[in-house]
């Protein structure tokens, strides 16, 4: 059981931007969260909402145009954004390990799998050098690569996708890290292999007490594995709570929409294809007010001018959401329970203020979200 009194990793007001030719892409905007010992924390959100950049920032892995512009990442009392490069290098792979979305491209094609696993151990002084070779085979067996002692000499191209992800996990676990960050570890894999990999992560968490941050846009995965969930939108946390709170009592309209768009085995095929209308905002110049307002069925006037902050929802202080309305009110006043039309403003009947619509119509540079805007002008 996770010990919720001891945060092992504290992210405080993290900001990360990419300084591109078009302007500053604020990919992570003031994100704070704690990771507790032994817990599995899920981070969900649509593509491009800043999940990867958040966790890459933790280990200082954003590169080139990317830069952490503010905040702290506290691990064992040290701010990882401030410590010298050599100290940070020893946190990477030793204390906090990371595995990535695409196991096909995440292993070096010219080095053998065994070499790449051993190398992770030689880089740090956790495992005695004499034991490294044997441990490499043990690790591969542990992640259930068949015939490990022979396959360890293979090159990545001789491994299947699932086996490569297993090898990545073995590499991640090699130094017995305190934290394992898994960034969409199963997205590139087929369904049965996905289940096996997730099973592996669950066992790992239960048997060794390793804390896990699991990034995914598949809520089903989160439901099966995570004790707590963070929902991100446009570079911000919009809701956070225990898995139960998020799944049973979502308060942010975005979370609610994500859950609605989740494929269910018992629904008809047509309904399953539902997804949230519109696209996430431009992270260089997002809309004023709440960034979800162009897509939110429950928006009110205030949403177009003022940006809400994360507040506790009420059931207990672990559950927080960033919304003026919240689903409690949406259920009570806007008929959210029976809502079939989820187009922007559909439930509340609120349209963007006149000035904003005109601005969209006048400006040819800002390509308006045709579906959403068309809808507003039509009705």
């Amino acid at each position, binding site marked *: 059981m996770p010990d919720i009194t001891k945060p092992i990793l504290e992210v405080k007001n993290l900001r990360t931007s990419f300084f591109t030719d078009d302007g500053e892409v604020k990919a992570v905007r003031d994100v704070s969260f704690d990771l507790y010992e032994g817990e599995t924390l899920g981070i969900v959100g649509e593509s491009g909402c800043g999940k990867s950049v958040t966790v890459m920032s933790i280990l200082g892995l954003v590169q080139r145009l990317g830069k952490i512009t503010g905040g702290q990442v506290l691990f064992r009392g040290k701010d990882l954004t401030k410590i010298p490069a050599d100290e940070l*290098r020893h946190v990477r792979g*030793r204390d906090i390990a990371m595995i990535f979305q695409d196991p096909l*491209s*995440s*292993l070096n*094609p*010219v*080095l053998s799998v065994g070499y790449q696993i051993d*190398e*992770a151990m030689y880089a740090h002084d956790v495992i005695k050098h004499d034991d490294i070779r044997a441990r490499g085979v043990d690790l591969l067996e542990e992640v259930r690569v068949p015939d490990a002692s022979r396959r360890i000499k293979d090159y990545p191209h001789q491994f299947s996708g699932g086996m490569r992800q297993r090898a990545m996990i073995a590499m991640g676990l090699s130094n017995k890290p305190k934290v394992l960050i898994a960034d969409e570890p199963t997205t590139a894999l087929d369904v049965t292999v996905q289940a096996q990999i997730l099973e592996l992560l669950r066992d790992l968490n239960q048997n060794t007490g390793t804390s896990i941050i699991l990034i995914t846009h598949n809520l089903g995965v989160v439901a099966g594995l995570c004790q707590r969930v963070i929902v991100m939108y446009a570079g911000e946390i919009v809701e956070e709570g225990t898995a139960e709170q998020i799944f049973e009592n979502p308060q942010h309209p975005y979370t609610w929409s994500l859950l609605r768009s989740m494929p269910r085995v018992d629904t008809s095929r047509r309904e399953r294809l539902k997804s949230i209308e519109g696209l996430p905002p431009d992270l260089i110049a997002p809309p004023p007010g709440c960034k979800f307002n162009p897509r939110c069925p429950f928006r009110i006037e205030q949403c177009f001018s003022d940006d809400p902050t994360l507040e506790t929802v009420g059931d207990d202080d672990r559950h927080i959401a960033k919304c003026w309305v919240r689903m409690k009110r949406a259920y009570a006043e806007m008929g959210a329970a029976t809502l079939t039309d989820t187009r922007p403003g559909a439930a509340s009947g609120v349209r963007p203020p006149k000035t904003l619509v005109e601005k969209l119509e006048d400006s040819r540079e800002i390509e308006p979200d045709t579906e959403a805007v068309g809808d507003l002008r039509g009705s």
Partner: protein
Amino acid sequence: MLTRGTLIYIGQRLLLIAFTVLAVSFAVFAALHSLPGNPFVNEKLHGAELAAQMHLYGLDLPIPIQYWNWLKGAIHGDFGVSLAILNEPISPIVFREFSVSLMLGGAALLITLGLGTVLGVIAAARQNTWVDYTLTTFAVIGYSVPSFVLASVFILVFGVWLFNVTHGAFYYPLNWTGTYGTIEELSIPAIALGLYTSGQVTRITRAAMLDVIQQDYIRTARAKGLRQRIVILRHAFRNALIPVVSIAGPLIITIIVGSVVIENLFGIPGLGKEFVESILRHDYNIAIAVFTLYAALIGVANLLVDIAYAAIDPRIRY
């Protein structure tokens, strides 16, 4: 790893090289023997005397027969006798010259790959800094200036202008010292020959490194906590070498062609110098031997490149 399949592949390639060399030698043999003029023009022989000389060397026989006679010797490494230097056996001469050219070309190849990859890696690691701009400019100059121009400049600067400073170490009268020259004498021609190709290698290495360091496996390597130096050299550089090796074949041919000019400019007693001189002398037998050796050299070099390719990239298996 040398598997049975690899050995069979190498055997097949060697067979192919043998056929190519045979075809080249025959084509050159036929072509040279059909040229107007004869090896004895300088001796001003006419009529019956000339015919007697031609008969002595077997030059009056039909070309296929002459070729057959030549081939019987060549297979045993005997390329016959010189037609210009009376009865001098050719093989010792050309094999000695071959070793000289191999030394020069090898030095140039070392400069090409060594300098080229090192500068390419440095330029990529310092992308968009003055170091990068300087190296990139050097590379562009390197591969825009033909080696013979560079060679002439070097001779002028080191051999003539700096004659007193260098105590004539870089002075190339008509030949260099002895068969293999001195280190100083070798260095200037080798640089002139290798700088052009090293510019190309710099450019390709830089581009490949910049591409490679954006790959996911580099992120993995950094996330493992490897030292930056190891990430660059072990993970990035090995992958960046793949495109470099893929142009190594053409680079080697460029160096071989360039060596003909360089050897003649610097008076280096190698195959390239002999190549030109033997043709001017109508010394067919030497010219044919030289051509044959070049064909074999190119074939073997390309085979070595392909083996290196497989050694670097485990996805390539023959």
